[in-house]
């Protein structure tokens, strides 16, 4: 499988996710500079976390207009899977690939900690290695991860089973204590109707190696390799 990571000015999880991808794919990850207008042939596109353009104006807003994003949108619409993490989630939302918006955390503070996620949807290409209902642990690190959508959009996401991850406690219970940012309906990640475009605030690449204290995130990269190779 050939995976590519888009690099924007001040992306800062580009290397982290490339390392996690290489661990699962066993081959080098292609890094694509945001100023490019062409994408190489890729089986998976990752829009990584970070502070593209310093989060100035609105998180992800300026990056969404980078030349390469036109290509990313076109490929995504044509069926290439896209994994968008944290700032990447904000960018693809701004680019119109996923609905809703990510507002400032309810606490008004940046939050970095491990969270527990309930896998609500177990499908290819990203979550098929988890059983639906499983609770996994990976970190969040963001200032603007408070998911918002209007009632109609929310109902659509719920009705179509497009909520992929929800914040829960270690025991799997929902509630304010488990939700790190005030997200509506405890939503941590959503997908498009096909499940091929996934946006999530938590960082699977940061706990994909037991040496760092957990490897729950690794299954997402392994699943992608399994389905896209």
């Amino acid at each position: 499988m050939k995976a590519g990571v888009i690099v924007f000015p001040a992306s800062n999880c580009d290397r982290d996710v490339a390392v996690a991808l290489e661990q699962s794919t066993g081959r080098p990850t292609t890094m694509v500079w945001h100023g490019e207008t062409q994408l190489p042939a890729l089986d998976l596109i990752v829009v990584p976390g970070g502070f593209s353009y310093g989060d100035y104006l609105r998180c992800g807003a300026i990056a969404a207009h980078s030349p390469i994003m036109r290509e990313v949108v076109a490929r995504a619409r044509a069926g290439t899977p896209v994994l968008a993490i944290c700032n990447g989630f904000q960018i693809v939302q701004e680019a119109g690939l996923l609905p809703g918006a990510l507002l400032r955390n309810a606490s008004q503070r940046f939050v970095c900690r491990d969270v527990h996620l309930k896998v609500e949807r177990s499908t290819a290409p990203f979550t098929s290695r988890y059983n639906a209902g499983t609770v996994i642990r990976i970190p969040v690190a963001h200032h603007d991860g408070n998911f918002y959508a209007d009632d109609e959009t929310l109902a659509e996401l719920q009705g179509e089973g497009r909520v992929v991850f929800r914040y829960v406690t270690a025991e799997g219970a929902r509630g304010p204590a488990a939700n790190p940012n005030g997200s509506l309906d405890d939503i941590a990640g959503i997908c498009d109707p096909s499940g091929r475009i996934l946006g999530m605030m938590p960082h699977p690449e940061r706990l994909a190696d037991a040496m760092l204290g957990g490897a729950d995130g690794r299954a997402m990269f392994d699943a992608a390799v399994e389905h896209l190779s």
Partner: protein
Amino acid sequence: MKARVHVTLKPGVLDPQGRAINHALHSLGFDQVGDVRQGKFFDIDLGYEDRDAAEAAVKEMCDRLLANPVVESYAIEIDAP
């Protein structure tokens, strides 16, 4: 020519910043303070000669970049002080 653009969260979207400021003002003793909403604004210098052209361009800037239509609305003033 100059434009000033105000961008706010749409009514109905929770404004945690505004609420936090409301609380902070109350704890400073400003008990006459009611609702607080926070927004941002942009002052933009423009090279247009024509007011309508300027306004149209700024509207396009808002739609494409300056505001997020999912959660924000905007208001444009041309030649604001």
